[in-house]
Structure formats: C-alpha cells, structure tokens
C-alpha cells in the first residue's frame, strides 16, 4: 500500500491541452500512472497522447467511472471552477498544480471540499508520487524510489532533495506528497500525517516545512498522538528575518510563522527535529531502530 495513489488508481487531467499539462501527462503515462482521460471545456472530442479529451468532468467520469483522482493544470482564474467541477462530479482527490489562485477562491474551494469530503492538494503543489506505482503532478521521477518512509513537504524542490537524500542513504518512500506553495492550501500537514499513520506500508514520516504561514504549528498537536516516528525539518532558519506583520494578523497569528515558533511547536509535541536536510536519513534510521528495540 501507499497513501492516496497506488498502481491501480485512475487519474484524469483537467486542462490537459495546455503546454505543461500535456508534457507532464506524457511523463505520468511513461511512469505508469493510469491516466484515463483529460478535460478541456470546448475541446471535447480531441485526443492528447491517445487519451480522450472531454468537455466536462462529468462526461469524462461517465466514460471512466473508476477515475478517482484529478490533477488540475488550468490557469489560475479558472482553478476554482475546475476544482469545484471535479468535486461536484464526485472526485475525492484533486491535485492542484495551478499556482497563484486567489485566496478567497481557495477559501471557497476548501469549504466545498469539506462539505463533499474531498481532499484537495495544493494549489501550487508539485503533486505526489508513490514510487514505482503512480505519479500525479510534475515531480521528477529520478528523485524517488520505493520504500517505507512517507514524506510531506510544502515546496517542490525540498520534496525532491528530501527523497534524494533518503534514497542515497538506502531508504525509499511509500508516498511523497507536496502540499504546495500557495498561501491558502487545501490539504495540510495534519491531513497527510493522518493518512501515513494509517498506512501499513509506511514506517516513519518526514515532514519538511518552511518559514511563513501557520501550517506547521497547526499540525503539531496531532504529532503528539501519532504512533509512528515523525522527523521534522524547517527550512529557512538562516533566512533573513521578515518584518513584523504590523496589521490584524498579529492579533490572530501572534508569533506563528517563524522558524523558531515552528521548531518549538513540533519539538514540544514529540517530533524529531532535523537541523539540515542531510541529517534526515540518519534520524529516520535511528528512530526506526529505536522503535524496533
């Protein structure tokens, strides 16, 4: 097993006729991902890489009723609509590659996703991969190999380097999930940690956060309750300090958002803190040995 996607999951591509979407659809197919069709409103009937293109998600699902995941590649002004269309058609996992989606659009999408019990990953996510089984998004396959460590990170490149480090140390990933870089995200660290906790093929989890936002702090209380070891890394400790918020955010978020606040919240709740990406593999190994004794 793995989380969210596996060798059997059927995937559709919204905005498939775009340059990037088309290229990465090819990469996904090459990787073995079961991409079954694409959607571009107004281009129904065309073919891309021999895949049928439909006008609507509903039609696509009518022809491919087993499709369970959609990846969204449309321009930002159409992202809200594309995600809502997918959710409304019954898709339970929407992987949103599109970046710079208006924040109020994402708030609306989050609400609908919650009502319909759908998992929206992103926006601005590189996607996710269960190595050797399925890749949804545009992660470079070379960075990943199969194994029993789950990873979840905010940025794309950190996802790749993290997997790369694990692989060089002889470990591999059950699934690697990129949460995305937009200010308002769908799935958060906690959502993904919960899935890893329940996955029998994941032994340990690495979460890589970064300065800014509140998502790392929000995940901390859950980490206290998780049984599998969690190694956490926060990028940006050496980054220049931002200015004080100077506005209403100060009332809500207080001191959240700094590397210190994040590290402290995670540490307090039992996460194993990695100072650098390079020491993560060693910490994972130690944690797993500790578990086995």
């Amino acid at each position, binding site marked *: 097993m793995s989380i969210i996607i596996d060798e059997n999951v059927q995937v559709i591509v919204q905005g498939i006729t775009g340059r990037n979407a088309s290229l990465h659809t090819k990469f996904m197919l090459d990787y073995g991902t079961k991409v079954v069709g694409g959607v571009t409103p107004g281009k129904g009937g065309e073919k891309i890489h021999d895949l049928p293109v439909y006008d609507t998600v509903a039609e696509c699902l009518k022809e491919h009723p087993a499709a369970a995941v959609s990846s969204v590649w449309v321009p930002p002004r159409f992202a809200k609509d594309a995600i809502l269309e997918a959710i409304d058609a019954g898709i339970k996992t929407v992987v949103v590659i599109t970046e710079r989606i208006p*924040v109020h659009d994402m708030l609306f999408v989050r609400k609908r996703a919650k009502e319909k019990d759908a998992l929206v990953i992103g926006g601005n996510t590189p996607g996710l991969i269960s190595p050797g089984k399925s890749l949804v998004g545009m992660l*470079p396959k070379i960075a990943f190999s199969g194994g029993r460590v789950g990873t979840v990170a905010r940025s794309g490149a950190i996802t790749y380097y993290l997997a790369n480090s694990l692989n060089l140390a002889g470990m591999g990933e059950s699934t690697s999930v990129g949460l995305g870089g937009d200010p308002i995200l769908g799935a958060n660290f906690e959502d993904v940690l919960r899935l890893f906790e329940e996955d029998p093929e994941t032994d340990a989890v690495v979460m890589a956060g970064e300065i800014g936002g509140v998502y790392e702090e929000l995940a901390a209380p859950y980490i206290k309750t998780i049984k599998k070891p969690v190694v956490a890394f926060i*990028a*940006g400790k050496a980054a220049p300090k931002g200015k004080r918020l100077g*506005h209403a955010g100060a009332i809500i978020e207080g001191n959240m958002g700094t590397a210190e606040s994040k590290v402290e919240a995670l540490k307090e709740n039992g996460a194993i803190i990695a*100072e650098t*990406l*390079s020491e993560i593999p060693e910490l994972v190994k130690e944690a797993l040995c500790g578990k086995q004794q």
Partner: protein
Amino acid sequence: MRLYEYEGKQLFKRYNIPTPNSVVVGDFSELDKVVYPVVLKGQVFIGRRGKAGAIQFANSKKEAETKIKELLGRVIHGYEVTKVLVEEKVEIDREFYLSATIDRTKHKPLLIVSSEGGMEIEEIAKKPDAIIKHYLEIGERVEPYLGRSIARKMEFKGDAMLKVGNIIVALYNLFLDYDCKLVEINPLVLTADGKIIALDSKVDLDEDAMYRHKELMQMGIEARHEIGELTKREKIAKKAGIPYVDLDGDIGVFPGGAGFGIASIDLIKHFGGNPANFMDSGGAPTQERLRLMIGLLMDNPKVKVIFGARFGGISRCDDWAKAVVQYVLENRPQKPMIMRMAGNMEEEGRKIFEEAIKEHSELFKNIKVYKFDTPIEEVIKEAIKESI
C-alpha cells in the same frame, strides 16, 4: 498588494465609509479645497509615520505649502514621498479599531474590532479583553443587524451605533468585493462633535485576484511593487517579480525552482559558507527571468562564486540550461559557477550544455554542472571551497 492610505480611502468613499475632507497633492493646485488646520500625511508604506516625520500639521495654506515642499521627495525608510494626503484636522474624542481579514489557522474570514484603537496593532493585541472577533462563513455577508450588534458591543449607542454598524457592513463588503486580504481602519474616531470618521486606511489586496478588478485601474490603483527599504539589486528583482534579498556573504545562490532557495541558504551556512543572497525563481520561470537572476549575482561585486541547483519539476532542466548557456555566451562571465542539474528534461538540458562546451570550451571552463549522482551537499561544499 498594499494600497496607499489615500487609495484605501478612495475605496472607503465608494462604500460610504466617512473619511476627513481631503485632497491629495503632488503639486499645490488643490490646497484651496480644504479648510485649515490640516494634517499633511506623506504617503509611504510604513507604520509609526508620525515618529518617522511623515506626518505634519499646518494651520494655513502657506504653512501647508512649505511643509509639503519639505515632504515631497523625502525618502523615509527607503520610501520616497511622491504624494501627500492633506486632510482637514478633526477633534478626536475616542479612538477605535476595525478590521476584516482572514484567519489562516481556521481558514475563515473574520471581523476584528476593539474599543481601544489608535495605537500600534501590537499594542492593541495586548488588550485582548477589548478585542471582539466575529467569524463569518465563506460566502456570507455581514447583515446590518450584525454590524449594529458589533457596534453595540464596542459601546456605541443610538445614532453612532447605526453609523458604525453601517461602516462594519461596508468594510466587510469592500473586503469581499475587492478580494482583500486585509481592510483595516485604525483609528476609527468619534469626533468631539459626534461624527464617526475613518482616520487611516490599510487595505491589502490579493495581487493574484487583480485581474477581476479592472475598475481599480480606472481609479489609478495598479499592480505595483513596494520598493521602500530595498537595496539596488532588491529593487531590480522586485520590479521583475523575483523574490530576492541581499545577504552579506560571498556565495551567490541561483536556485532552480520554487522553495529550495531558503533551504539552500540553510545548507550553505551549515557547511560554513556565507550566502550572498536569498532568491526564488517561482515555478516555470521564463528565459529572460532566469538570465536576469544570473546577472543579479554576477554583477554583485561581493559574489565570488555562484552555487546553482535545478531539480526539474515544472521548471524544466532544458529551459534552465538554455538560459545559463545564453547568459554565458552573451556576458562571458569570469566568476565560477558550481551547479547541479537533475529531474525533468535532464537529458535535453545536458545536451545543451555539452554542445555549448564543445564549441566554447574556454568560456565554460569555470562552469561545472553536476548530475543526479552527486549529492547536493557535495556541490555546496565545493562552492564553499571556491569562495574561500
């Protein structure tokens, strides 16, 4: 995207949120339109403008002219004053705080009000008992009764309660209608003669949603870059939309995809190096942007070596390689570049480098592009060695 105070107040007027009578001057032609005494407010994006000297008072048109002349063109914390907001002075009886924003921990919009206003937000935050937070559902508007009820909790009564209630409704409508991240009135004042007036405005629009607010352009409000307190290179980067911060080290950091920038700085420091900058390319940068990024580092005299890393996701290796090669051919740089390239379209990228090296081996002699099988840490260590 933050708006200037006077721009925010233009929006306030559209929503019938009362503001002092005022004119905005870049020159002096409009100074007859206000009644003196007035407050002169230099339009810059900083807090504590009073302390910084951006706010002056004038009792006559003549005094106003003199002081505006002093203000215009002054650079305050890196921001040049190009416009002065001239407002009729109001007699303040009490100050309050109002804002609409998004709580990112709950993913909900909310109203925040306080019967203690007029001070810095950090001070307001220290009096939690005076703060009222009201969360809204997504898609919900503030009904008039809710505005009144919040105004009532702020201790307003009678007519003032009705007015503040309307302002709260309007504030939240503005917040939603214009895709704001923040609309703040601090202070909202009750004047000595019983009027309710928004004395300052802080409006932060979502730059990513500007495409649906064309009418803002008609009001003269356009996507802009805040360039106060920035170094020369930071300004150039900002104008091009590239997140860039000068640091004081000597290793130029040329990242290849969104997000890894901050992590590579951590790594350089960890291994004992000194990064010269923070930079983020964003997803799928253009050729032009990539070359500009390299140029920023090459042109920085402090930089001794450039460390580059591309892990091709949506930002493709071939695009990256093309940009590096073109930059080198055009600019014949002398500084060494120690880089690693892996990921999507790596093979195509590598071919581009190989061909360039074949034809221009002398030009590329200081440029190393490691492959996937060299760990990023090794590449960083080599870059650090070069910088010593």
